[in-house]
Structure formats: C-alpha cells, structure tokens
C-alpha cells in the first residue's frame, strides 16, 4: 500500500516516502476512528433493540451522532488525577492502551495488498501487540491507588493471559493449513466461494476463537474486570475526561480488530461469498465481514449473563486449553497423514 502510494506521488526522494507512509497511516486510522464512534452507537442500538428499548435517538438522525456528542462531552470535562496516584504511570496507561489498539491495524489487509505493512510475521505481530495490551490495564489499576481499580486490573491481566493461550493454539491450527504467517497469504489460501472459507472446515476452533476473543477484549459475558455490580468500573474507576475516552476508544478499536482478525482467519477476508457477487470491491466485503463479527460481539452482550470469576478461569484452563490442544493435534494429523500440507516458496 505504501509503495503504491509512493509511485502514485511520483516515486522520488526520502521525504516523499515519508509522505506516502503518513498518507497510508491516515487512510487506515481515520476510518478506524470513525467506525469506532459508529460501532459504539450500533452496540448501544443493538443492545437496546434486544431489550425492546429505543436506545440513543436524540442527537442527529436516529441518534447516529450520539457517540460524537459523548466524545465532545468527555473532551470538555476536567481531567481528575487522584492525590495518591502515581501521576506519570496514571497518565501513561490510557495512552498505551489506545496506541496499542491502533498499531495492530498496521498489518490488517483490508483488500489484496492493502495493508500499511505487509509483514511476513503479521499474525505473530498481532499476537505480540495484543499480549502487550495487558500493560495498559495493569498500569492503570496500580497507578490509580484504589482497591477497586487494582482488583479489576488483576482480574483483567489474569484473564487476558489465560485466554491468549487458547487463541495461540487456534492460530496454530489455521496456520498449519496456510503455511505462512502473513495475513495476506492466510486470506489468499481461502480464495473462492464461501465453501472454501476456513469457518466451515475449522468450525470448532472458530467457536473457540470467538469465545476467547470475547474474553480477550473483556466483553460480556467475560467483562469481570469492569463488573459494575462488584467493582464499580474496575481499572477505569478513577479515570475521567479524555483519559477515560482513550480507554473506551481503545476497547472498541480492539473489538473491531478482533472482528477483523476473525474475518481474515475464518471468513475469507476480502473475497466475495459467491461468484456473481464479485463485482463488489474487496474492501466492502471486508467491511461487511467485520460488521458481522461485531454484530456477534454485540448480540452476545445483550443476552448472556456474566460469568463468575472462578468459572471463567475454569473455562479457560480446563476446557478451552485441552480442547484447542486436541484440535491442534487433530488438524496437524489430518494435514500430515493426509498429505495436505501446503508447500510454499
């Protein structure tokens, strides 16, 4: 994507290359930021629809500008720093959360070759960045100097570390069938109609991945870190104004990212489901698939009750870990003994 822009701009000089990189980053970042705002609105609308309420409906047509109004309100509020807080870390934490949520998007291909950085280890990069996500939460919990925040942070960290393990194994299963860590290659291995997509052949691990993604992003039914009934708001409890907004944006950007990864790994990325629909450009399909992923995230929030913390840990370590380990061996055996292993390069 960067190289294409570089040649489009004329293709000369280092400065122009920097301009091309910045343009590419903006071309991904601005839509992500806008869709985060819209996605918050859709989340509330879906939740409201399930409970037969009307949801946000005042600001703008159908209330679609509600998120922007909320952002403006948060922007104008006072930033409060608790007296006992460790000021530097307290302010660093939301920035880290937000930055990490954004930089993962660098490797997500929205269409063939349309990623800021086409890394050979793209999927590992995403795994690495998402494992860093714990720090924003732990640091905020510790620096707030509040028991609620600290408990929430501890819960969240333990939960994210636990479910990362099974996400890792799910990725291994898919990677066995692809033979490359490059996200573009993963999508291209599912070329063709809906029947070639991974979610059919890998259905059991698709389910494991989805549930682990819920836990990884602290979404209901696994939103124990911010369980309002017991911990007020968990690690965010002492935050106000823009610091809170950064956490909020980071959280929803992460949810979108997980939907995008699901689209890439299991739903065939930018490919159309049927040949007669191929006239629609690839990035539209990608957007639709991210939307489907997000809809599942939102609808689960609406009708599943919250887990108890020990049950959450039990599910992660005693159910998902053995299951995903089993599926790694299962799929590896099929690919090795069936002679199906992909040969590359």
């Amino acid at each position: 994507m960067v190289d294409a822009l570089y040649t489009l701009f004329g293709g000369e000089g280092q400065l122009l290359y920097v301009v091309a990189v910045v343009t590419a980053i903006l071309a991904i970042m601005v839509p992500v930021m806008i869709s985060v705002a819209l996605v918050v609105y859709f989340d509330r609308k879906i939740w409201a629809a399930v409970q037969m309420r009307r949801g946000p409906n005042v600001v703008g047509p159908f209330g679609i500008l509600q998120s922007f109004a909320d952002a403006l309100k948060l922007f104008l509020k006072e930033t409060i720093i608790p007296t006992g807080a460790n000021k530097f870390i307290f302010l660093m934490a939301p920035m880290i959360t937000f930055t990490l949520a954004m930089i993962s998007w660098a490797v997500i291909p929205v269409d063939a070759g349309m990623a800021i950085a086409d890394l050979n280890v793209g999927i590992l990069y995403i795994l690495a960045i998402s494992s860093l996500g714990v720090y924003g939460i732990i640091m905020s919990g510790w620096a707030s100097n509040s028991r609620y925040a600290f408990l929430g942070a501890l819960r969240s960290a333990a939960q994210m570390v636990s479910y990362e393990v099974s996400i890792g194994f799910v990725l291994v299963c898919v990677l066995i069938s692809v033979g490359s860590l490059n996200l573009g290659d993963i999508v291209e291995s599912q070329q063709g109609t809906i029947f070639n997509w991974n979610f059919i052949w890998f259905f059991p691990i698709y389910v494991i991945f989805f549930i682990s993604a819920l836990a990884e992003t602290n979404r209901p039914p696994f939103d124990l870190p911010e369980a309002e009934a017991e911990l007020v708001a968990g690690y965010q409890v002492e935050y106000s104004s823009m610091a809170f907004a950064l956490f909020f944006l980071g959280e929803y950007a992460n949810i979108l990212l997980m939907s995008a990864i699901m689209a890439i790994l299991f739903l065939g990325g930018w490919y159309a489901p049927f040949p007669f629909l191929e006239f629609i450009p690839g990035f539209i399909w990608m957007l639709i698939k991210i939307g489907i992923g997000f809809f599942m995230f939102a609808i689960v929030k609406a009708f599943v009750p919250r887990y108890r913390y020990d049950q959450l840990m039990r599910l992660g370590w005693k159910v998902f870990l053995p299951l995903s380990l089993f599926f790694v061996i299962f799929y590896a055996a099929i690919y090795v003994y069936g002679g199906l292993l992909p040969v590359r390069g």
Partner: protein
Amino acid sequence: MEIALPDMVFYLFASVTVASGVLVISARNPVHSVLWLILAFFSAAGLFVLMGAEFLAMLLVVVYVGAVAVLFLFVVMMLDINFTELRQGMLQHLPLGGLVGFILLGELVALTLAWNFGEDVAKNAASPTPTDAGITNTEALGQLLYTDYIFIFQTAGLILLVAMIGAIVLTLRDRPGVRRQNIGQQVNRKPQEAFDLVDVETGKGVSLPTKKG
C-alpha cells in the same frame, strides 16, 4: 544529504535499551524497575527487527514482554516492599554483585572468543537472515530446529514440562474440608432429588425430610 535511516533507528533502539537497562537497577520504585525492564525488552526486539530477525523479535515480545514480565509485574505489585529498607544494604552488597557481574562478563568474553561453529552452522551464521531469498526466517528456523536439532529441542521442551509440573506439585496443598464445586454433578441434578413439595396444614408445622447431597 541523505540520512541513513536504519543507522539512526539502530542508535535510537540501542541507546533506549542501555538507558532503560540502567534505570532498571537505579529506579527507586520496584514497579518502575519492571516497567523499565519491559522497555528494555521491547527495544531489544526492535534491534532484532533491524537485523532482519523478525520472528525472534516477535517471540521476544510475545514471551518476555507478554508473559514473563506480566508475572514479574504481578509479583512486584502484590509484594509489600519497604523501599527504604531495600535501599540500605545497597553499598554493602555492591562489591559482591560487582564481582558476580564481572565473572559473568569474563565468561561471556571467553566463550565468544573460543566459539567454534559446526560446519553447516557456519554458513548460516554469516548473516542473521537466511541467504536464500525465497525462505522467510520463520521457515529457516523451523527447518533447522525440527531437523538437525530435534532431540535437543524436544529435550528442552521436556525440561520445561518437568519444571512446570514441579512448580504445581510444590504449591499443591491438600486442604481438608474444602467444599469444591462439581459442575457436572450440578448440571445432572434432577428436581426430584433436589427438593420436595410439602403440603403444610395451618397450625401444624412440618418436619422436613433431611436429604443428602
């Protein structure tokens, strides 16, 4: 004048690594120490990327930053550490610590000077990335680890497994009288064995049959 960007980035990462390494041992607050350690890991990963060893870089972040350092941070945050007490012995232990560091440094130097590469390793050691342009370094590592060094690799895995089981055995205490939840049992319970419907006559009261389980 063209600025050599890779050089600049190298010096940036290298100086951040060294500076945060120094701050790990000089920071007053242990939590800050761990955070500086994480920064050191992270910039070391950046150095790996510059060398073209992208797979190692990502592994460094996933394993050390994402898992090991999180546990460090956990332990340090949970411990009730008296900072001033911790500082007191600093000068007293400095010679001993310095000696250990010095010996380690000497050993590392001696090892590097007397290093002998195996025949087929020497070819690959020439550059951190595989010479064949068609192979990514993930594949190159895999082809080496799972062929020539498979037994060593598997042994390392077994040692880690033993250590893991050992840690579990050491911390496992059999505490009597703990009520455990058996989810399978709970799910399988029928209404008939869980409760009774009793008709209570007014003014008579009722004696409930005691149930087990």
